[in-house]
């Protein structure tokens, strides 16, 4: 059981074959099954040649776009997990609050035509309000729901986080209605710029650019400022950091603020990509982004960025590449299936992720 508990490597040593149990058989069947679907599906799809280069490029670009949104959300998970060892289950919903706040700015701006006339200042205003809102809500949840559990062990903090997630969703449902609201769709976002002969919509360039800029700023904050250094110290060892005179409470608050700000930007981007907001919209991307954070090695900032991009691309290319080839009907309905399978495979087989930091090993 020890190899099960400490997370298994891909190729166990031959000597352990003697202790090959039923559980191992199932796990290997799972691995082989996934690999067979991936390889078989890819070969099948490529042989059939149903998709041309333009389509593959579109899948890829969409994957990078949605992946950079996942990366922004994953940053919030990974940083909070780093300092508190808590899965902020409500982080996806914090993203949703940002999207809603952005909507209430974007809708009137679109109505008056300002969003079309001066896109840059309008988008900045939308981002600013979204960031402010989700930062405030992230800080409120930290103060009211998570701080009392700072020293608690066991399942209590996670259960409380699940409660916060529900509470946020339902509060927004009550206050703003259960219906889906259409996000504005300004003309300039539909235009395309051509790269190597392929057209890329401006909207997707904007999303990727916004994500890259905010991630660069975040990276500088984490690496270069005093607060960022303190954050990394707390993430390494909170008790030792406290002994060195770091105010852990302030670091935690700062971490939640950073994560909230990233979630706000992600929320607006996500809503512009899918052109809608509703109270439950944060749940699925939230879970996927958590998967991305684990994939990149939870606690690691560059890992979350890479994990997010990887997940986005796999999820976008996957249905066509893996599933179409083995004759699945309507493979696009199974996009979430690919993302969740990836999430579970990571949690089971590589809980310390690609750029894994040691600490996750102890936890998972």
């Amino acid at each position: 059981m020890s190899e099960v508990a400490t997370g298994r490597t891909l190729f166990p040593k031959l000597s352990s074959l003697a202790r090959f149990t039923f559980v191992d058989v199932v796990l290997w069947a799972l691995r082989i099954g996934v690999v067979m679907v991936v390889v078989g599906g890819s070969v099948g799809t490529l042989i059939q040649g149903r998709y041309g280069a333009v389509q593959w490029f579109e899948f890829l670009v969409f994957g990078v776009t949605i992946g950079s949104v996942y990366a922004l959300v994953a940053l919030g998970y990974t940083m909070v997990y780093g300092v508190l060892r808590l899965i902020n289950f409500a982080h996806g919903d914090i993203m949703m609050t940002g999207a809603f706040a952005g909507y209430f700015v974007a809708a009137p701006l679109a109505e008056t035509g300002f969003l079309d006339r001066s896109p840059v200042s309008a988008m900045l205003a939308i981002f600013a309000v979204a960031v402010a809102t989700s930062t405030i809500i992230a800080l409120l949840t930290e103060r009211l729901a998570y701080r009392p559990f700072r020293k608690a062990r066991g399942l209590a903090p996670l259960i409380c986080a699940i409660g916060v997630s529900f509470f946020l969703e339902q509060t927004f449902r009550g206050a703003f209605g259960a219906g889906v609201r259409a996000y504005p769709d300004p003309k300039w976002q539909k235009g395309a710029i051509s790269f190597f002969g392929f057209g890329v919509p401006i909207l997707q360039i904007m999303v990727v650019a916004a994500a890259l800029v905010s991630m660069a700023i975040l990276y500088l904050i984490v690496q270069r400022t005093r607060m960022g250094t303190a954050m990394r110290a707390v993430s390494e060892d909170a008790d030792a950091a406290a002994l060195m005179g770091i105010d852990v409470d302030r670091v935690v608050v700062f971490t939640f603020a950073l994560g909230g700000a990233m979630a706000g930007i992600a929320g607006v981007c996500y809503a512009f990509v899918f052109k809608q907001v509703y109270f439950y919209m944060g749940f699925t991307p939230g879970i996927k982004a958590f998967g991305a954070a684990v994939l990149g090695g939870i606690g690691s900032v560059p890992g979350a960025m890479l994990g997010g991009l990887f997940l986005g691309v796999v999820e976008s290319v996957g249905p066509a590449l893996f599933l179409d080839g083995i004759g699945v009907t309507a493979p696009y309905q199974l996009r979430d299936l690919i993302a969740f399978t990836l999430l579970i495979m990571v949690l089971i087989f590589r809980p310390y992720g690609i750029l894994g930091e040691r600490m996750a090993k102890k936890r998972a």
Partner: protein
Amino acid sequence: MSVATVDLADRASSGKHSPFRRALGIGLILGVVAVYGATVGILPLMDARWIIVNVVSLGDTALIAIGLGAGAMVAARTRSSEFWPLVPPSLVAGGVAGGLLALLALAMQAFPLRQIFIALSPSLLKSLTFGLGAPLGGAVLIVVGALLAVLGAALTRAPEGLRKPVTVGLAFVIVFGVFQELIQIMMQSGGAIDALRQSIYTWEGLTLEGALMIFVLASGATFVWTAWLRGPARERLIHLSPAQRRYAKAVRVALFILVLVLLPVVAGSYIGQVMMLVGLYILMGMGLNLEVGLAGLLDLGFVAFFAVGAYTTAILTADSPHALASYTAIPSLSYWAAMPIAVLASIVVGVLFGIPVLGVRGDYLAVATMGLGEIVRVVVQSDMAAPLLGGAQGILQIPKPRIGGYELADPVQLFYLTLAASAIAAYFAWRLENSRLGRAWMAVRDDEDVAQALGINLVKVKLLAYGLGAAFAGLAGSIFAVMLTSVYPSSFQLLVSINVLALIIVGGMGSLPGVMVGAMALVGLPELLREFGEFRFLLYGAALIIMMRVRPEGLWPSATRRRELRDEAGESVLDEPEEAAALARRRVSDVQKTEL
């Protein structure tokens, strides 16, 4: 007497927290609660329901309760037992709470808030400001809030002979008002009872005379009980012999079961349906309780087992093209043959579900199981599996179970099926809890590594937890399928898992009676207050947070769990100045008592 504890108590209760600051805090919290209720739309909904027709609505009652509560909280946080020193802080607390609502009213009048917050309607403004407009009505709100708070403080400090009858009387009026539909249905049997119903109720709620009558009766009875009857009754209870006590307990349990069995017959099919739903959730709660409460495996994919039970029953019995009977040689089974197969299938799925996540612990386990549950739902919903499972339309025309030539079609009859299933399941759960396996689960919950070192086979024990937990859910799913006579994927969302988790947490993890209390509170209550149904998930979210913060052991905890959680939370509880002060105060009074 230790100097340190006194110092702690003084500092926490007077230094930083002067009475006025504390009152301000209480007022702000309650005011925010009221404003939140208005913004989210609960208050407008409550306003639409009368407690006493044309006199007091449920919304008014809630606001009055907040006002009274402000005073009561001020009184509870103050040590002195006198009334007069409470008046100024109570005025502040109630006034501040009313003031926040007044601010909301002002904002509603000044800005078109409704374009963003759909619940802030003009009719809400009117009812908040007594139809006087924001400035004047707001002033009235503040004054009323302050006065109510003083009343609340006075009530808290009143002698028991006055306080108890008044509170019990009010509580009875509220209960009779809130559940008026239900009580009216139950009283409609005709004859004298029906005449009584007509004298205290109209179709919308209590009449003023009816409310007064209930208040007088309830408070009178309470007064008589506290003044003359309670003492002797307690006296007798203390002098009972152990054998007599056991006997008394058996009588209580028997009475409870009798009420449970007879209630749906008396109260009609609606209550039967609600009770049946509660029964299903109790079944699932008992299953998840094995996993989370005993074995400590936080499983958010629990709904998958429920779905397996329901779909297996559907495929085996339904009269539809998706049933096995229509495209294989397997004959269409009766419900009684399909149910055990459904349970068995759930066990198999539970074990298969458990194997990959054997090595995943704690928080990661929660996310991994949730992912597995979502995968099941996505697959069932997809067109890929549609030829087998009917896709989003699901499988229809599942026949109701039959006994002989008799069909269990009515919700009340199905309730008895659920009750029987729950009773059997409860017996199993109870035996499991006290078995060797149950103790092994608890050991794994407390520390996996130590449990393994003590020779517990983690793989076997964990897989048994998943499999047996799944069996309960499969049984519930099987009954669910015949209740609806159809299954579709939208019934098996993550919400169900969260719902079950919330009910075992509210009831108390690892405690069987807790599961029942939790299911009644979280499933039964919202079902009875139908128009508040859309807020039930808000209730679940709030319940999870509040229970974890205030009462992590649940409403009806198991004895061991209570001990553990108190120990575990010990250090973190002391972080709260308020609680630290309360603890210190308690210590001081203990010391004083021993000195006396």
